[in-house]
């Protein structure tokens, strides 16, 4: 662990901080070990550090992974995870600590049987009869109520199954009235699945297992196009995640995520000139060598026309809806980017 500055460092770029948690192994619980959460946490950490991503200074990121320990240690335990939140709570009582806090959580999670809004992360030492856990959404709620940051970004790639015998215990933080500025806090809370559902991981092309939801979130952070003012907002990210998840799920059956935000107090994640382009391969079947391809965007504006020099060609397209047609024939196809990496017309 690195030393933590009690107030976020005033970098020339941002007053952003982050908590990153990834737990793969639950040796005492009977819960199946996971392969994805540590990878997910590392990937999210890398995005946070990336100058073209979150662009956070290393000292502003507090991280704990089960891979920091040997699997048989059954670590981290709740106190070790809660220690990441502690400085924000201790100092948050005094007032605002920064502009934005990211909280990324991956591991086995669960929902409270009684309170449908609460979701917790099982600690690595969780047992069936002692379900040690960290009440993540309680912490986030506290930080919101005390307006510790102007913006809260919570990403939980965890199951939210509900177990009648496992209720979520409120953390032992101080009780205080909260801040009048709480109403102004902007939030983006993204859960891999709705309450009662199971989040999924799978192997990806890089040979590692990752959470499908984390992959979709990170991709959305990288490629989502801006609005007319050049802003990539929480609402646009949400749309992108909802519309690209199928691509990352592959053959795995997944449940839809739950993403909560207030459209009247949305977060502007970045300013961006345009969306990142994604590759699409177009196969011509049949191919005679005389075809001319015409590509239209979702407004039916022609954006490209060219004679096909091969039975297959590659395009780089921003996320959206498109139509491609073979000129002077009835052959055409409408498709979506992402989700259609290869189409045949």
């Amino acid at each position, binding site marked *: 662990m690195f030393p933590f500055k009690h107030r976020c460092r005033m970098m020339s770029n941002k007053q952003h901080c982050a908590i990153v948690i990834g737990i793969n192994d639950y040796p005492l619980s009977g819960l199946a070990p996971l392969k994805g959460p540590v990878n997910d946490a590392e990937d999210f950490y890398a995005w946070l550090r990336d100058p073209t991503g979150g662009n956070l200074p290393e000292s502003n990121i507090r991280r704990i992974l089960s891979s920091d320990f040997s699997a048989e240690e059954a670590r981290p335990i709740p106190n070790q995870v809660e220690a990441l939140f502690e400085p924000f709570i201790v100092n948050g009582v005094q007032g605002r600590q920064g502009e934005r806090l990211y909280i990324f959580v991956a591991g086995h999670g669960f929902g409270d049987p009684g309170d449908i809004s609460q979701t917790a992360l099982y600690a690595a030492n969780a047992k*069936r009869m002692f379900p040690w856990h960290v009440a993540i959404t309680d912490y986030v709620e506290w930080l919101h109520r005390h307006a510790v940051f102007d913006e809260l970004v919570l990403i939980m790639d965890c199951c939210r199954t*509900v*177990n*009648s015998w496992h209720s979520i215990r409120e953390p032992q933080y101080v009780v205080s009235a909260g801040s009048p500025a709480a109403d102004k806090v902007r939030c983006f809370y993204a859960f891999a699945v709705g309450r009662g559902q199971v989040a999924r991981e799978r192997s990806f092309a890089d040979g590692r297992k990752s959470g499908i939801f984390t992959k979709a979130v990170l991709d959305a952070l990288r490629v989502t196009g801006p609005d007319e003012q050049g802003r990539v907002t929480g*609402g646009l990210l949400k749309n992108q995640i909802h*519309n690209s998840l199928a691509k990352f799920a592959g053959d795995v059956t997944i449940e839809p995520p739950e993403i909560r935000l207030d459209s009247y107090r949305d977060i502007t994640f970045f300013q961006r000139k345009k969306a990142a382009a994604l590759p699409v391969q177009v196969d011509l079947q049949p191919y005679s060598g005389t075809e001319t391809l015409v590509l239209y965007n*979702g407004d*039916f504006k022609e954006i490209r026309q060219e004679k096909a020099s091969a039975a297959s060609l590659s395009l780089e397209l921003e996320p*959206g809806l498109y139509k491609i047609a073979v000129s002077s024939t009835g052959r055409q196809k*409408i498709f979506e980017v992402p989700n259609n990496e290869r189409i045949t017309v």
Partner: protein
Amino acid sequence: MSGSQSESMVTLRVNAADSLTEVFLVDRRFEKIAAGIGSVEAMVAPGLYKARFRVGQVQSDSLIEVPADAAVKVFDGPAVQFASPVPLRQTMTWRQEHGEAAQELSRAKTAPFRAGNGSQFFLVLRGLTEAAAQPWLGVSLHNLDGGLMAKAEHGICNAESRLCVLHLELNPGTYCLRVEEEQGEIYEMFVLTLAGWQTQIFAVAEDGWLPGVQLLRANLPEAAVLMNEMGKGFDPASPAARQTEQLRLGLLHGRKVLSQNGLQNLLAAQPLNPMNALYAAGLLQESDFVDAAAELAQHLDGLPDMELLLPGAGRAEESPSFALPPLLRKSWQLLMEAVSKEKAVIPPGSLNEQIQQGAALNTALWLMHRLG
């Protein structure tokens, strides 16, 4: 998509395959431009759009081309292949053998077992995997005193088909459907039968729906319950059965699947299906359609759920007494809240008092409690 003033707009109507499917319409930038239940309509510029159809936690997408040369574009979406304990066609859990067997056996005018008369109980337990070859294990039906009415294994059971069907004629009333998860771990839900109606219960055998229990047992907390008039039986292709199941899924997953129109259509049905009335009452909790409450409350008169879910629409006693359990867990929660506020009473020695003192599963759609 925002169209310029000079651009001709088109009326785009997107119809779902059934009236309770949620429909979302997004533009080329994936921005939501319309949402509705059963269908949506929007004025749009010519271009490409995406419709998303959702039932419970399952959704499917369709891309739509809206040409410039039409004033109206109608798009009929595909049926969403959701998962269900009911062997319905066009679901991801459809098994022809199960559907046809349930259809044939449910239509018998007289049930093979008689323990009363006037109503029928029709139980279908299914296994969807090879490991779930005996979905009937541990399942039994009891009266409210705990007396055994029948074990599922007394029905038609076939390990090869992974199917069990138990068909009984009963006096109308409330019964207990039990499953023994492991030795001594018995859970119970409540089932209503009504005069002239066949109550159809469907459950899939799954492992581990209780923490730490790996035995394959019928997943009663997620059981589906349908009703049909006696003699009409179950039809796996019935839009009405699909509709009732979609109401249950909406309630289970907290989806707002009842629109004003949808509710009116439900209420207009003659006779109103009792399960539709129950599910609609549960869904009304999440909606603003208070006017419908009084109409709904006329159905299933005397069922605790209706009094609890539709307060003010039923009896006007100050502290009504509830001796018999409701069917839905949501109703039970409302009862517990009412009791804690001294707005309802549970009589001493009643079944409800036993449940209150025991352990009710707070994760099921149905009120389920552990015996003992």
